[in-house]
């Protein structure tokens, strides 16, 4: 065991880091751009030099890099404070779906501008009535000549308002069982009838949107997969979501807890000397280190050619509740001041409180705690699914409460 790169990995890391050192924008002019503009400028610069979507085939703008090279690149790029999230869904989840299911013309048309950041994509799967039961979606598409007409509502769509295109799963046949009546399209987000409304979260932020479709026409050529095959196509997208998730719950790590406990006093002594505080910190560190080294083990497997599996679900299942418990406890350590949200008055309280209010969302987004535990139980441990009352029943006859 060692934490070092293989010689090939080290060579690749060196190449990446020296390119980054020369090309990562740090100038003031760049910083005056909006975050989205910054992201687009930086993405285009990477694309032009062959550093965008490096795992993709060269004809789509990548360089056919290995999974471990992608990890190394991310590690190196993350040394710089550069916006990246805008393209995560499009490049991480939708790109692979287009590669697997789109026509050659569509691949040639859409993948390069997706890689270069010139076109942004979003994903339109979730619906108000769906939630954990993703396939229970109700947005309908009805055939009209060479077109389909879409009506319904999507929700939790990140980036809908700045996206050029979106992928959408819709119900094309409500009279067959749930998973069998779906089809998958891409849509122009600027098309008539598409209406985007931001959702205000309980944190006060708006990271997501509701997207309403009213008689939105899409051509049948925008369909990916066969009619009725929408669920299989969306699984391609979702599998790549799972690969994208995991690990990154470090926005509030134990070092923050240690520093708060060093500053705050209990009975005239630093809280870090209090045995109850120490027990908590120890337990969080066990979780944090455990996830970190689980990540190292996955990385090792990845570098040997393995695919990321469902066991990565533990990152979120452990990380999100830890963030909630830790932020709650640190607020307690701050006492009445823990309630202060104003970072100018109480710097750490503000950060901690953002974490506390954000944690419930992290425990839900991309699969609730309960779904994550199901995934581990079923796909890792091989336990049986629950009995499914909606199995084999026409969608329009499934009980909906």
């Amino acid at each position, binding site marked *: 065991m060692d934490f070092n790169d293989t010689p090939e990995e080290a060579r690749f890391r060196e190449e990446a880091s020296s390119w980054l050192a020369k090309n990562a924008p740090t100038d003031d002019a760049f910083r005056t751009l909006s975050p989205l503009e910054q992201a687009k400028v930086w993405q285009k610069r990477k694309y032009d030099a062959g550093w965008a979507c490096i795992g993709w085939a060269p004809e789509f703008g990548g360089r056919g890099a290995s999974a471990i090279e992608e990890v190394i690149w991310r590690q190196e790029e993350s040394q710089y404070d550069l916006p990246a999230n805008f393209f995560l869904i499009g490049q991480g989840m939708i790109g692979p779906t287009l590669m697997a299911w789109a026509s050659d013309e569509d691949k040639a048309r859409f993948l390069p501008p997706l890689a270069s950041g010139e076109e942004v994509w979003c994903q339109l799967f*979730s619906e*108000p*009535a769906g*939630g*954990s*039961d993703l396939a*229970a979606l109700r947005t309908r598409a009805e055939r009209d000549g060479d077109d389909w007409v879409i009506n319904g509502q999507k*929700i*939790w769509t990140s980036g809908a308002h700045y996206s050029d295109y979106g992928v959408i799963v819709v119900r094309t046949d409500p009279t067959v069982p749930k998973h069998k009546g779906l089809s998958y399209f891409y849509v122009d987000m600027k098309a008539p009838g598409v209406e985007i409304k931001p*959702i*205000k*979260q*309980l944190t*006060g932020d708006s990271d997501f949107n509701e997207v309403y479709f009213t008689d939105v026409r899409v051509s049948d050529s925008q369909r990916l997969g066969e009619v009725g095959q929408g669920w299989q196509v969306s699984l391609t997208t979702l599998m790549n979501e799972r690969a994208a998730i995991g690990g990154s719950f470090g926005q509030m790590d134990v070092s923050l807890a240690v520093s708060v406990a060093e*500053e*705050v*006093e*209990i*009975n*005239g002594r630093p*809280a870090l000397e209090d045995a*109850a505080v120490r027990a908590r910190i120890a337990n969080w560190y066990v979780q944090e280190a455990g996830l970190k080294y689980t990540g190292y083990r996955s990385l090792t497997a990845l570098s040997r050619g393995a695919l990321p599996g469902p066991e990565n679900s533990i990152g979120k299942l452990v990380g999100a509740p830890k963030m*909630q418990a830790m932020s*709650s406890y640190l*607020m*307690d*350590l*701050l*006492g*009445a*001041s*823990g*309630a*202060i*949200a*104003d970072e100018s*008055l*109480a710097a750490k*309280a503000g950060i901690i*409180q953002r974490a*506390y*209010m954000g944690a*419930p*969302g992290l*425990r*839900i*987004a991309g699969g*609730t*705690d*309960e779904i994550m*535990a199901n995934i581990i139980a079923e796909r890792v441990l091989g336990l049986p699914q*629950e009995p*499914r*009352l*909606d199995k084999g*029943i026409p969608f329009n006859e*499934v*009980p*909906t*409460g």
Partner: protein
Amino acid sequence: MNFEFSDEQQLLREQARGFLTEYCPASVVRAVLDGDQDWDAALWQKVADMGWTATVIPEAYGGLGLSYYELAIIAEEMGRSAAPLPFSSSVYLASEAIQRFGTEAQKSAWLPRLASGECVATVAMAEGAGRLALGRLETCRSGSQLSGTKVPVADASIAEVAVVLARSEAGLEACLVPLQQAGISMEPVITLDTSRGHSVITFDGAQAEVLGHAALDPVDWESLLDGAAVLLAWEQLGLAETALTQARDYALQRFAFGRAIGSYQAIKHKLANMYVKNTLARSNAYYGVWALAEGSDELPLAAATARVAAIQASTYAAEENIQTHGGMGFTWEFDCHFYLRRAKLLSLAIGSEAMWQDRLVSALAAHSAAA
């Protein structure tokens, strides 16, 4: 054995619940949370008209002279509706401090106006981050002048007067400080629950008078906090009950995979856990209010037990209510977050869980030693 509220008290509960259902639905909380106001002044007036601010103030001072049992009932209902009111500051803390420690003149001056609700008061204790140490306060009185900074102070922006915990040469003191005066500057402080206003108050030679005739025995201040802990426990219990009810109703109505999510064991057992914690909190709140109302020497133990149980029940119920609602629970539009904000705010007031766990064990050890 009669470990239950009387029929008259149960009637008061029904009345209070009916009143708050009508006048303090979630939309009232939302209006204050979303808006610029630190409270709902009209609702306060109505609550005062009901006599709730007067509940345990003696009749001699314009109060109703009722017991803590009645006040506990009102507290639970206040919590149930997450009322955007300075009730805990003014009633459980400031009125109690004046009643317990004030001179006759101070009581006569303030209690009738507090009872009628025309005056709102608050208590200023915290001086920034960390567990409050009564022996190490930085706010000082010298002569009639008070100096120091208190942050955060709940409901200060709407209070006419504050009971300020301070030190002087005589030791620990509670000072009575009118808040509209030259020696005071006050700035709003945004907290996680903006349906209750908070401030930072800077006293720079502010005019202050000592509450009572002499310095405070810290034990007496802790006894005041014990009383407030019991009443806050009832309020937190009310919050926890609302969160459980919301979660249950949603679990019955929301379907996934062809059946109500409330039929899945993961959700069932989550709600069963809420019920268990709420039940323990309720029974311990009974114990607490019994000790408070009867003046039992078990109060320190009973109050700490009620407080710890209520903190645990209310934060768990509020957090898991959001999880039960899934993505919808994480929106601003749904009400679930009100209860999370308030539950955590009340859990941080008057000392957090760990401090009360510590007090609980001290009381338990004293109790065992005495037995």
